[in-house]
């Protein structure tokens, strides 16, 4: 039996009005990878923030290496050998990689000034160990999201901590980088470090973890050995009931009716000669690595970015789209990837967020038809089963899945024929995921055509009629339903043809 490294027992954390953690137990052994699993809002991140000194616990105790510890701030957590890779990327955008890795613990020269040379050299060493091919003096904002995520990982590992918490470390990584991360984790295990691994990607848990602890609504549900459990058991522990199936899809008869056709779309340095058609009542998946230009294509179609050349046809009519309102007028709706930055008005209530694109339907000069707005908001809250106490609730108080549904509602209210969804289930828990799939299925049945960008291959394969695989700004291949599998998609996504 390996040694106990960390023991968190009966942890309670209250926020004004809510119990975020209701007496949670968690333990970690040396050389173990222990997963924390649960829907969004289950309290996983909160528990780890208590361990990392971001939050201070209200009740309970933390024991590290058989010694009871009190962690009141970030530095005390570090002293006790805890380092955390946070879910959101927390790097300073205008500082260099080296400056970020050593932020708060810069090496000093004898005269008290920062020792730049040592700092750059050591940072470069870390980067080279990971074979990232980056210069330590590069400014963070010049990196891709995936690269930034790798820097977060390097930063956490560089502390030589006993306990490393990884909160969704792979959410924006490509397969190659995920492989690197897993190799690093194996290395850390050999060095007897303990790793807490938080992820929504089930297959990763089975690949890398030893034990899995499930949380729900701030409570401890149970701990299982990874090799003695399966997907269904975990999901039912997470949602508290059996989820009969995740994906729901009714395929429609092919009519061959084109609702959208894009010809020779190019934007210098971003997308290059993109051609595709979208047929009525289908879901066209868009797959590809991060940075392949998927969102960029959609932003051109929706009038957010200008394109250099190309033509867009809606139905059989050639259209000019210069601003988003041109696209909306043609029945196109776009639910963006980053719902917090590009989508929601977080500090505004649910009804405000739902009705913002249909104001012209109920505001005439000075006359506001409040009852129409209320009816619309309530309709979507009901139809999409948005879990909110009422329509006046501030959106930032909702869980990720419900926020996403609010954003869906906004665009459904515009009654689109063509719905573009950019990573519709990113950062959304299993329960909400399955609901979103079922909403998509209903829409398709009603004759709406959907373009779905997704980095999750199972999602692409199970939900799409066809999938367009992009590589370096071009569509490499469009695969039909019967040709779709993970290997084929990855093959084209990495430039094969």
């Amino acid at each position: 039996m390996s040694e106990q490294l960390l023991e968190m027992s009966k942890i309670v954390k209250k926020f004004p009005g809510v119990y975020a953690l209701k007496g949670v137990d968690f333990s970690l052994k040396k050389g173990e990878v222990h997963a924390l699993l649960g829907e969004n809002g289950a309290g996983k991140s909160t528990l780890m923030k208590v361990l990392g000194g971001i939050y201070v616990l209200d009740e309970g105790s933390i024991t590290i290496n058989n010694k009871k510890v009190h962690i009141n701030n970030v530095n005390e957590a570090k002293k006790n050998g805890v380092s955390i890779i946070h879910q959101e990327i927390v790097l300073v955008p205008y500082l260099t990689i080296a400056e970020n890795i050593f932020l708060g613990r810069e090496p000093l020269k004898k005269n008290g000034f920062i020792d730049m040379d040592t700092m750059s050299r050591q940072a470069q060493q870390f980067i080279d160990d990971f074979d990232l091919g980056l210069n330590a003096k590069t400014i963070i904002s010049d990196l891709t999201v995936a690269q930034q995520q790798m820097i977060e990982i390097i930063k956490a590992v560089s502390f030589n901590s006993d306990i490393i918490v990884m909160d969704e470390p792979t959410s924006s990584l490509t397969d190659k980088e995920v492989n690197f991360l897993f190799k690093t984790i194996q290395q850390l295990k050999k060095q007897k470090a303990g790793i807490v691994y938080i992820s929504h990607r089930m297959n990763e848990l089975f690949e890398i973890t030893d034990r899995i602890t499930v949380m729900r609504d701030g409570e401890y549900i149970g701990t299982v050995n990874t090799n003695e459990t399966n997907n269904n058991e975990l999901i039912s522990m997470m949602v508290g009931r059996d989820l009969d199936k995740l994906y729901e899809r009714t395929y429609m008869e092919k009519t061959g009716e084109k609702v959208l056709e894009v010809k020779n779309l190019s934007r210098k340095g971003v997308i290059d000669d993109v051609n595709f058609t979208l047929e009525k009542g289908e879901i066209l998946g868009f797959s590809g690595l991060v940075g392949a230009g998927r969102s960029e294509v959609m932003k051109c179609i929706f009038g957010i970015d200008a394109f250099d050349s190309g033509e867009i046809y809606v139905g059989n009519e050639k259209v000019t789209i210069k601003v988003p309102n041109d696209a909306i007028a043609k029945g196109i709706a776009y639910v963006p990837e980053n719902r917090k930055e590009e989508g929601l008005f977080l500090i505004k209530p649910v009804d405000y967020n739902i009705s913002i694109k249909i104001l012209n339907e109920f505001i005439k000069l000075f006359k506001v038809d409040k009852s129409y707005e209320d009816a619309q908001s309530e309709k979507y809250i009901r139809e999409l089963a948005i879990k909110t106490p009422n329509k006046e609730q501030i959106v930032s108080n909702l869980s990720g899945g419900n926020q996403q549904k609010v954003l869906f509602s906004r665009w459904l209210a515009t009654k689109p024929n063509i719905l573009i969804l950019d990573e519709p289930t990113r950062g959304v828990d299993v329960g909400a995921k399955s609901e979103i799939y079922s909403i998509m299925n209903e829409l398709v049945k009603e004759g709406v055509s959907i373009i779905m960008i997704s980095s999750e291959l199972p999602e692409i394969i199970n939900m799409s009629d066809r999938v367009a695989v992009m590589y370096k700004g071009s569509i490499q291949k469009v695969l039909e339903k019967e040709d779709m599998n993970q290997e084929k998609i990855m093959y084209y996504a990495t430039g094969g043809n």
Partner: protein
Amino acid sequence: MSNLSYETKNDHIFLKMGNAVLQYLKENKGILIGLVVLCIFISIMNPDFLTTNNLMNVLRQTSTNMYLAIAMTMVIILGGIDLSVGSIIAVTGVATTMLIAVAGFPIWLAVVIGILVGMLFGAFNGYVSATTIIPPFIITLATMNIARGAAYVISDGKPVRVMDDSFNVIGSGYIGPVPMQVIYLIVFLIIAYLIMNKTRLGRHMYAVGGNSEAAKFSGINIKKVKLFAYTFSGFMAGVAGVVLSARMFSGQPTAGDMAELDAIAAVVLGGTSMTGGRGKIGGTVIGALIIGVLSNGLNLLGVSSFWQYVVKGVVILVAVYADVFRKK
């Protein structure tokens, strides 16, 4: 042998300095060109501009603004703003001169206490900004009024005269051809440069302004960083207040009116981002010089002070727009 290694090390340092200068020129290319063009234009229109005497004058006139702008750069880099510095000039000037003229304090002690008064206002700004969620714009807007009011209250609204040459020399003295004010400026510039580029404190200011969440997660003491920057800003305003009052033989409750806005203009012209996280002291120096050269030049060309405001406003807009455009 040891001689040889000494020389190679020396080369290394020169090489490093050369690189640093090149880097500086490259980073500030846009506004440097602007400054040079401005100087050429003015010296063609009026050859008196390029005399040593006048150039020293420009430096001297610019130095007060630079005192403020140096510290303002730090405050803006960490994501704040300090509107109170103009009023702090008045209150420190009045306090210092009153201590000498009314209370009979020795000059050195009055100067020290005067500067301390400035630091106290700055520390108050820093403390409130670090411990509450009141935006710094509002905090310093409040202290701007409080400090200005205090200057009027303690002086009863009248200038406080100090007819003492050993006080006056603090503001009007020269070392060789170089005004004392410029000497102080060089010292403060070196200190500020070292803080921003060589110390943890400086690095942490960039971190707090660039992403305060990341700063917090890295265990940086954000309160300490804020407290320092605002206190330093109060200190520099205190220095400006003392120097100005010494130069004018009097503490004036109206001194430093709108000086904070000139300082902010210099910072922004120098390429520092108003949203924090990005900027350089070196850029601010050029920004302040542009403002200084502009008003000196317009004076030489006989443009009325009414029109000077209009010209200054247009130059700020055009320069910042050109800079943003270039970086895009």
